[in-house]
């Protein structure tokens, strides 16, 4: 068991290191921040001076080693645009993203599991057809289109809710709705199919044969087991949303991590890109690690099979 844990933690560290390394190399190949930060046509000497000031004239391998040494100490450098520590800026935006992601996940999972459960239990009924059609639509609708539709209807036409920004609970409603529809759609489809799988298992037949009431069979026996893949999916979705739903945040002028990263990519603000990607990678890999560590507790067979 302890070896399994150490292996998984080791793998997670390698994954984070790999991600930040790839991003480090790719960003440096794609553009020159010094040129973007100064007005076009600035004399070359001044561009070179800024490049030197930012430490970009050094060989890439030196820049990389310097980056690694500082990063392990938590220092991701000063943002080129904002003149402030990059990690501070990313962390400053994290609460906005966390609130948006957290609320959307909770709401989406509740609606999604209910819909998925009903669809599986009432298989072949009009209820299943409706739930699954809505879920399919929800999953196929581009998030930004849905966002704009909601803004136009509830924000512009009805005037009930703010069209964007973050000043009150009301401004949370539309972006959460947008994201939770997506989450609910994903969760309901997955939960339905895994519930159907569980319902066809022998132990369910046994439980039914014993004469247990359907409610107990569905929730206690089938439902519990069917939840395992859903838990995984929810964890992954959470990590993804926490990493910043760039599109939703842009459409709703939400001051979160995703929007900050988009802007940093446009401006080649390397320190922010690195700090942001590092944080997302840690959240993502950390969540996966957590799932891996929890699995053996849920289902002993997982440990044996390794």
């Amino acid at each position, binding site marked *: 068991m302890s070896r399994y844990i150490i292996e998984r933690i080791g793998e997670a560290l390698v994954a984070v290191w790999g991600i930040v390394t790839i991003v480090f190399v790719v960003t440096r190949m794609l*553009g020159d921040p010094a040129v973007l930060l100064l007005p076009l046509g600035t004399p070359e000497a001044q561009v070179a001076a800024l490049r030197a000031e930012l430490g970009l004239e050094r060989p890439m391998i030196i820049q990389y080693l310097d980056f690694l040494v500082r990063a392990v100490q938590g220092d991701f450098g000063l943002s080129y645009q904002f003149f402030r520590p990059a990690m501070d800026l990313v962390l400053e935006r994290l609460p906005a993203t966390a609130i948006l992601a957290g609320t959307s996940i909770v709401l989406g999972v509740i609606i999604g599991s209910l819909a998925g459960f009903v669809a599986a239990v009432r298989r072949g009924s009009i209820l299943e057809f409706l739930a699954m059609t809505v879920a399919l639509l929800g999953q196929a609708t581009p998030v930004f289109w849905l966002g704009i539709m909601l803004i136009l209807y509830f924000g512009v036409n009805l005037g009930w809710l703010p069209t964007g920004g973050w000043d009150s609970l009301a401004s949370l409603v539309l972006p959460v709705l947008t994201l939770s529809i997506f989450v609910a759609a994903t969760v309901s489809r997955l939960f339905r199919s895994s519930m159907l799988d569980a319902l066809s298992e022998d132990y369910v037949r046994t439980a039914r044969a014993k004469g247990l009431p359907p409610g107990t069979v569905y929730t206690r026996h089938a439902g519990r087991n069917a939840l395992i893949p859903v838990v995984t999916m929810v964890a992954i979705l959470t990590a993804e949303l926490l990493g910043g739903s760039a599109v939703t945040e842009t459409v709703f002028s939400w001051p979160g991590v995703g929007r900050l990263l988009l802007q940093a990519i446009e401006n080649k603000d390397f320190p922010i890109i690195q700090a942001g990607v590092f944080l997302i990678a840690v959240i993502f890999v950390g969540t996966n690690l957590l799932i891996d560590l929890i699995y053996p507790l849920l289902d002993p067979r997982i440990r044996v099979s390794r």
Partner: protein
Amino acid sequence: MVTKISSLAGAAPGSLRSLTVAALLGASLAGALASSASAETLTIALSSTVNTLDPTQAQVVGTDVSVATHLYSPLVARGPDGKLYGVLAESWQPEGDSAWLFNLKPGVTFPGGEPLDAEAVKWNIDRIRNPETKSRNRSWFDPVSEVEVVSPTQVRIKTKGPYPTLPDQLSMIFFLSPEWMKTHNPATEAYGTGPYKLKQFVAGDRLILEPNDKAVLEKPTFDEVSMRVIPEASARVAGLLAGEVDLAFDLPLEDVERIKKSGRADAGWVPSSRSMVVRMNTLKAPLAGNTKLRQALNYAVDKEGMVEALLGGLGTVSQCQILTPAYFGFNQDLKPYPYDPAKAKQLIKEAGITTPLKIDLEVPLGRYFMASEIGQIVAGQLQEVGIEATIKEMDFGAWVKTYAGRDMGQMALLGQAWPTLDADGMLGLYAAANPTAYFDDKPFDEALKAGRGTTDPAKRLEAYKTATARMCEEAPVIFLFAQPFTYGTSKKGTWKARGDDWVRATDVVTK
């Protein structure tokens, strides 16, 4: 995860816009208008994030510099009419060819009582000039040799040679309190003599300003100014229609008419100071040393048609120069190359070029208005005169690396503007010494030198007349049009429209 972010980044803006068009068309605009803002609050939508409050580092006029203008005072400012007026400066005049003298208004103080006098002005300019400050604006003061305090209300800025555009450049410089600077961070805090003071700054989201009771130079006109960062154009339109925003810019062209018709808000456009051009690399074959070929390309492109078809008439064709009428040095006498494919073909023949001629057209994406569409139209029209332009679309950041590194391809589409609205800066982009000139023409350079060599406006105008005429003749670019600058206002007031990116609460007049 990484790929996800970049693919989202690529997918967002374009598709969002076209979808919004459909959405706005479909959506019924009838319904209750809920306006929560009071009459005394002005809400301005900024199109991109405010990076810093530090005026020493502020460069982007539409965001950072415009924010600074509310919090701090410059010596001079440019009004919507394009003319400079004194803010801290009472008057100013050149002294020969090597100095400018500024007379300051007496008795101006920072909120804590420290004087904003000649000494403070000198301290601020010297601070920017000091390499240790690492100010990104330092190059503006390269021609300055010394700042001299003559008296508390007089400051003399000595220059290495004539610097005729110094006052224009100073309209983008704001003054900090030396005393306050010792213990504060100007990137996130503000303490100035502007009409407003900082109430709240939520990074990435909004800035709330309230009147600065101690302002003596420019009076606040609203009880509160809220600047909200709304990067997505369709969201700005929605905010305007919902009554949440009073002033917004860079709206999709196709929404301008729709906003007007909605009855909920007003919209309009002005020609901006940014000229769209197809740059030609006149240092590279086959465009090098081949004026006739370059002229032919200008005849081959239908600028009028492009403005009609692409911009729905919202645009003005460039008058054979990269300057728009807003610039000092604009040449009234020049006329656009007419659309004449026959003449183009003939010139190509005279130039000794055998068609079809293959040529590359670089189109940087994500920065210039409708870049992709313009690129395709240009390529299509060049095709008709036997030039096969291969479009190479690339990310702006990647493209600019080659462009600024003297490695531009044969042709590239771009928009150019210069914040001081003076021919010196704008035409200077084509001076041979400039790394992005891709043009090396003695008569043109000499005319520029003549313009820079004097502070006499009449002589300068004459010099720029020569320079623009020469550039029209030599055609280092295909002159296209001035990019339209769209804006929208709520019913609360009217905006004194200007096309030079400045966003000022003082430009809004309440009804």
